[in-house]
């Protein structure tokens, strides 16, 4: 057997998997786009040496405490500091000035993963003098990623990439202002996280917990079917104050989302939108 070979996922087992995830752990994965979900399941099966999804289902039933760990394995945590630098530049130039006079700035990172995205935001707010007025919320369903996010330490092998992105967004700003090195880790200035709260929150099943001036939800919608994208985007737009900003991933689209009507593009290429006033 070649290393590429993944166990096959039978439809009946998949349906059972959905039922178990829902009943046992309260997660509804039915709206996740099937192609990548199946591949992901295949990868997890292989990692555990399980021969098919049926075996995983048995395990989920037998070991309920295994749920959190499993969520962490099945979700995709890929992220970067200032991922897609041009989007951050646009956000800085076209979105942040809208809040220059605002008494407070509540920002929600949905699907915050290991925290690089909210750190990027915190750095931008520091540089523009808005940090002290900000309240940042970083949420995810993966508690393992959230735990990592709170440490704000990342392997040194990522330094080149992160530093390049940083320089592209903040030319001339010294990297050392925010990052030092310890052993084989980059350590971000803990002051960046002073105004950040990390919470477990499932955007598929839970209502927003506040209203926000800015909602950032990038590279999460790609994992959903068009129908679920539509529901989730409605939820995101509902959570925005009139005039608030929504930022999604640069390859994501609002094509399937009725709530797009309630938004105007601030920068279509960079997927930055603003909620209409009425």
């Amino acid at each position, binding site marked *: 057997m070649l290393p590429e070979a993944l166990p096959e996922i039978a439809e009946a087992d998949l349906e059972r998997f959905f039922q178990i995830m829902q009943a046992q752990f309260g997660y509804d994965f039915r709206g996740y786009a099937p*192609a*990548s979900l199946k591949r992901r399941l295949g990868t997890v099966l292989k990692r555990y040496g399980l021969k098919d999804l049926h075996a995983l289902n048995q395990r989920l039933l037998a070991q309920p405490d295994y749920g959190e760990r499993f969520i962490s394995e099945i979700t995709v945590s890929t992220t970067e500091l200032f991922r897609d630098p041009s989007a951050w530049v646009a956000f800085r130039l076209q979105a942040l000035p809208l809040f220059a006079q605002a008494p407070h700035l509540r920002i929600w990172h949905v699907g915050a993963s290991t925290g690089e995205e909210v750190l990027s935001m915190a750095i931008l707010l520091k540089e523009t003098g808005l940090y002290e007025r900000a309240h940042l919320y970083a949420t995810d369903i993966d508690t393992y990623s959230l735990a990592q996010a709170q440490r704000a330490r990342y392997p040194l092998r990522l330094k080149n990439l992160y530093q390049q992105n940083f320089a592209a967004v903040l030319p001339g700003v010294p990297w050392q202002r925010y990052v030092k090195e310890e052993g084989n880790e980059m350590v971000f200035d803990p002051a960046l996280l002073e105004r950040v709260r990390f919470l477990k929150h499932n955007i598929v099943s839970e209502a927003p917990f506040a209203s926000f001036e800015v909602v950032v939800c990038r590279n999460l919608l*790609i*994992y959903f*079917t068009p129908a679920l994208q539509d529901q989730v985007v409605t939820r995101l737009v509902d959570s925005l104050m009139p005039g608030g900003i929504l930022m999604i991933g640069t*390859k*994501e689209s609002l094509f399937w989302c009725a709530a797009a009507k309630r938004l105007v593009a601030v920068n279509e290429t960079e997927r930055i939108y603003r909620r209409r006033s009425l």
Partner: protein
Amino acid sequence: MTERPFLWVVAGSAGSFTPARQFVQEMPYRPQVAIVLCLHRMRKPRVPMIEAFSRIPYWQVVEPQDKDPIESGKVYLAPADYHLLVEREGYFSLSVDEPVHFSRPSIDVLLESVVEARWPRAGAVLLSGANRDGAWGLYLFHRAGYFTAVQDPQEAEVPTMPRAALELFTPNRLCKAHELVQVCLEALSL
């Protein structure tokens, strides 16, 4: 939803760009066909690949966004740094799952998704490349009954990728770079 187009996948890595572009230049229009180019590319290209496809006579060249419906008459360029997958419902999905064979987009991921989606009609050709991404996917593709072609390793700029495929199975066609249009038309006529 309209009828699903015939999906023709052109895939490769190092040494595949020139033959792939030539193919798109020369491929005559055929109705009910969509072409997908899955070429490994730099993570952060200085010039986006799409700019190399500015004057294509018969096809509209686009980088698909997530959940774009798969439509006839288009050439889809897999975007840098995302996997491109085909969904049974007739649209693309993008993902940022880990690279496969150090590659994102990965050819294996794309081809497997077409098989998994049971796309009604499809074919694929695997070109020059320096790693073995695509070999396994093309084999699954072949096993599922789709038309497959592999660039002759003798002629490929970098033979690793076609060779890896040929070690697994015998494709319908072994072809040279200048035969890509002919091979695609052949697949369409089956």
